[in-house]
């Protein structure tokens, strides 16, 4: 149990996908302008990450490894994720239209989100069990959510301020991301010591 909590907390804070592992930077910079779109995108990411792990982990362990096909990992995983995203979109549209309305527009964007492919491959690389892999995915998704929501707050402050001309737009956003990511460095070592 302690191990699961450590995995969860370190995925959220220390190894935050966006701010320390640089995965999923594209949506982080692209969709974090407004709070509601940031929330929608991150919820969709959490959802897809959990689904993708639930599907890819068994595929890797029970299909690829026993048949000595480990080298197909990248191809299989990206296809599974792409198919899964499409499937989820269709199912949501048909049965849960209200959820589709809030998450739907973000789903197609997630296929090429490196955070999702990243989490599924990392789960295998780290040798996690199924439960640990699911917890890690949840933590990574929550970390993404936290970073997105925090950063959308930071960005709304930037929008209204007076910025040198060449820094307008993306450069100032990246500098703000640097400072946000600096604040996450403060969590380093906290979680291990919490349970030591």
């Amino acid at each position, binding site marked *: 149990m302690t191990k699961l909590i450590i995995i969860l907390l370190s995925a959220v804070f220390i190894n935050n996908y966006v701010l320390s592992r640089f995965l999923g930077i594209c949506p982080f910079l692209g969709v974090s302008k407004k709070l509601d779109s940031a929330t929608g995108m991150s919820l969709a990411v959490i959802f897809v990450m959990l689904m993708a792990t639930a599907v890819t982990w068994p595929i890797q362990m029970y299909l690829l490894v026993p048949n000595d096909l480990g080298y197909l990992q990248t191809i299989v995983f990206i296809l599974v994720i792409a198919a899964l995203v499409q499937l989820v979109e269709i199912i949501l549209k048909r049965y849960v239209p209200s959820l589709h*309305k809030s998450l739907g527009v973000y789903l197609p964007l997630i296929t090429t989100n490196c955070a999702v492919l990243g989490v599924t491959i990392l789960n295998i690389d780290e040798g996690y069990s199924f439960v640990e892999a699911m917890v890690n995915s949840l933590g990574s998704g929550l970390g993404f959510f936290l970073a997105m929501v925090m950063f959308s707050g930071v960005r709304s402050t930037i929008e209204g301020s007076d910025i040198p001309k060449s820094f307008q737009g993306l450069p100032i956003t990246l*500098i703000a991301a640097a400072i946000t*990511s600096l604040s996450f460095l403060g969590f380093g070592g906290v979680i291990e010591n919490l349970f030591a």
Partner: protein
Amino acid sequence: MNTLKNFTKGLIKENPVLVLVLGTCPTLATSTSVINALGMGAAATVVLLCSNIVISALRKVIPDKVRIPCYIVLIAGFVTAVQMLVKAFAPALDKSLGIYLPLIVVNCIILGRAEMFANKNKVFDSAIDALGMGAGFTLALFLMATIREISGNGTFCGIEIPVLIDNHISIMTMAPGGFFVFGLLIACVNKFAKNKPQKKNFDCAGCPQAELCGKTSCDEEKKEAAVND
């Protein structure tokens, strides 16, 4: 002449990282040292070259409706090949690039070039375009890695630099330094590229599917989706 133009536009005018702002994730993650940056640049260039050539050759065969999945499968195939080659011949590089090597699959530059260039142009032009874009990507990575490694580690390609080695700013090789240096570089590009369209929509600038969705902002898409419902 045209061939030369195709090649050089990727280097500076349409630099994939600094001007088009594609492939930000590997740029930030692998630019901690010059060796890593060059390795990543080379790997991505090889994948880009192969995928551009094949996609361009098959541009009349692949049906328009399922082109994106087709491209992804092709790209994933080449990435797997490169991954195996790197594992076999440069195991140290494989270790330091780690997760970012398979993640070349979702590198926006590769899918972006397939969609923007390779499916409209001849094989030779596409190959030149891929080489130019790959060189541009490598150049941007090299630039960032040089700044980060010299200031953050006091070394260049692992060679110690006298005074700096004792006065290095470690934060530059850590995550915040990556964002910071990238921000500064783009600001420099904005400053010097005067004829570049300044009114750029940054909503989609960092979006991996910006060139695929064809809309100016995601809010627009959202509105449209709301209308459709």
